[in-house]
């Protein structure tokens, strides 16, 4: 398990290093120091930390106010609350008011799987993509998370970053040899011409594993990591549609309004080819942890590979 790392630890460790060099960085949390792996940050830089208590609306408003007076605020709290309870503050105080606020949603998607739908975040891409000037990033592993923090730390603007909770396998290994993150650009993790698999967040790893299974069946899939959900790398999608003729999207999100919907819109508008979306259904989920839920809903490597095989056969008979 030594190559498994938690994105939240990568995030806060990197942020601590940056904050030690830049006193304008202020971290704000809502009784979520433990959930966000912030204890070392608070112990090391107590003056650069603001505790708000369990009050996410106030949390985002306070961050916007800190930005007005020249601070560089980073909000860290569970994604399920930040993207629902304080959605209006995110929309009005941060994005619409053009403030410099970075919002980190931890334990997103189904990280809190067994805690039920109150704690799931399967709506954030759909909801937040409708807010102008808000950059949305879903890193796929710890190395990419670290690169994201370093990239955005000194950029002014409104950012939402969603990561998971558990330690997860590394996507960006030395062996892969790909630069983990460029803002607004898709990363090609694997070349192929049978079709393109497009994913983001924790499911990128499972998508890569699926691509290996498919290769054994003679299906060579291109794999794109679409870490930045907004602004969206439309060129990479159009190129994939033209060069591979079919796409499957895989995301830890509701089937409505997320990565699949975004890719479908781009493909339909620019170069229509078949697109299939793999995501969570529009219903309340069965009980399970992340890996159990991925497997149950066909979002683990085996499930993805099976859906792709069926899809390919359907496409080939068109």
């Amino acid at each position, binding site marked *: 398990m030594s190559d498994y790392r938690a994105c939240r630890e990568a995030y806060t460790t990197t942020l601590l290093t940056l904050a030690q060099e830049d006193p304008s960085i202020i971290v704000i949390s809502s009784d979520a120091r433990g959930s966000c792996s912030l204890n070392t940050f608070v112990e090391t830089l107590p003056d650069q930390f603001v505790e708000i208590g369990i009050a996410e609306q106030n949390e985002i408003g306070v961050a916007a106010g800190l*930005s*007005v007076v020249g601070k560089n605020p980073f909000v860290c709290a569970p994604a399920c609350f930040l993207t629902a309870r304080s959605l*209006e503050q995110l929309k*009005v105080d941060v994005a619409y008011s053009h403030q410099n606020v970075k919002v980190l949603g931890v334990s997103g998607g189904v990280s809190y799987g067994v805690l039920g739908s109150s704690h799931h975040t399967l709506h954030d891409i759909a909801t937040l993509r409708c807010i102008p000037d808000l950059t949305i990033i879903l890193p796929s592993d710890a190395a990419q998370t670290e690169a994201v923090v370093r990239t955005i730390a000194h950029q002014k603007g409104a950012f939402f970053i969603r990561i998971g909770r558990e330690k997860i396998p590394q996507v960006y290994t030395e062996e892969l040899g790909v630069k983990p993150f460029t803002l607004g650009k898709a990363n090609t993790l694997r070349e192929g011409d049978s079709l393109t698999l497009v994913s983001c967040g924790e499911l990128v790893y499972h998508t890569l594993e699926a691509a290996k299974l498919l290769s054994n069946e003679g299906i060579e899939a291109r794999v794109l990591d679409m870490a930045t959900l907004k602004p969206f790398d439309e060129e990479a999608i159009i190129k994939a549609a033209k060069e591979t003729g079919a796409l499957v999207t895989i995301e830890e999100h509701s089937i409505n309004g997320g990565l699949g919907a975004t890719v479908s819109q781009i493909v339909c508008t620019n170069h229509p080819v078949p697109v299939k979306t793999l995501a969570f259904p529009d219903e309340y989920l069965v009980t399970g942890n992340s890996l159990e839920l991925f497997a149950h809903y066909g979002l683990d490597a085996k499930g993805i590979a099976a859906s792709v095989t069926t899809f390919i056969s359907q496409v080939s008979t068109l």
Partner: protein
Amino acid sequence: MTIQALKQQALEVRKTLLSMIYQAKTGHTGGALSSTDLITALYFEVMHIDPSNPKWEGRDYFILSKGHSVEGYLSALAKRGFFDESLLSTFCQYKSPLIGHPNNKIPGIEMNTGALGHGLSISVGMAIGLKKDKKPNRVFTLMGDGELAEGSVWEAAMAASHYKLDNLIAIVDRNHLQISGSTEDVMGLEPLRERWESFGWQVEEIDGNSMLEVVNALKAAPFKEHKPSLIIANTTKGKGVKEMEDIPSWHHGVPNQHLYEQAMLDFESMEKELQNV
């Protein structure tokens, strides 16, 4: 400015805001008129500001949390020199930068408000940031009384006293009316003073349409070291236009030509009375 001159200035703001609403055929007349004396005192006497340099580092900050009262705010900013007063005639017109709520593309406006219950949190963040930098700038926030039903106000109220923000001065425009009627019928706010005191604020209650009381209270703030200050400004909704005073429908009523012309004549009579004092 003398109290006399500030009263004169408030009349000018009232005339201008009513003209804006009359021309645009839209606006929040009642609350703009109830809060005019507060905004006039802040911008023409109390706050440290530099209209030629709206982002001056030494400025005091103002957040209009009751963003719908934007007409008086824009009038005061223009008359104070933040932008050309001629722009006011474009209020709510197609492609105008002046929309029906504050927008920080306009010089002098810090934040886009309009969704109620946001301003105090923003102000708490500003006050925390200023304290961290040991800066003397103050933060003023004007809230509506109906707005106080928003739960986020009380989240912010709790944080302000927790962080001992004595650089934060919040004002409640207590005109006792909201769009559906009396605040006490819609969602009772009383005992308002005690509620704020129990949240750790130092509270003063004034006549918010008495320029003397408004200026004295704002100049006396902060009222106590290590505590945020709250001014409950008892006002009259629609203040200055008798036909509108204390009538809920003037929350966003627009005067017809007859009432508008009559109100402007009344304002002029009030100005003459002031000059004769």
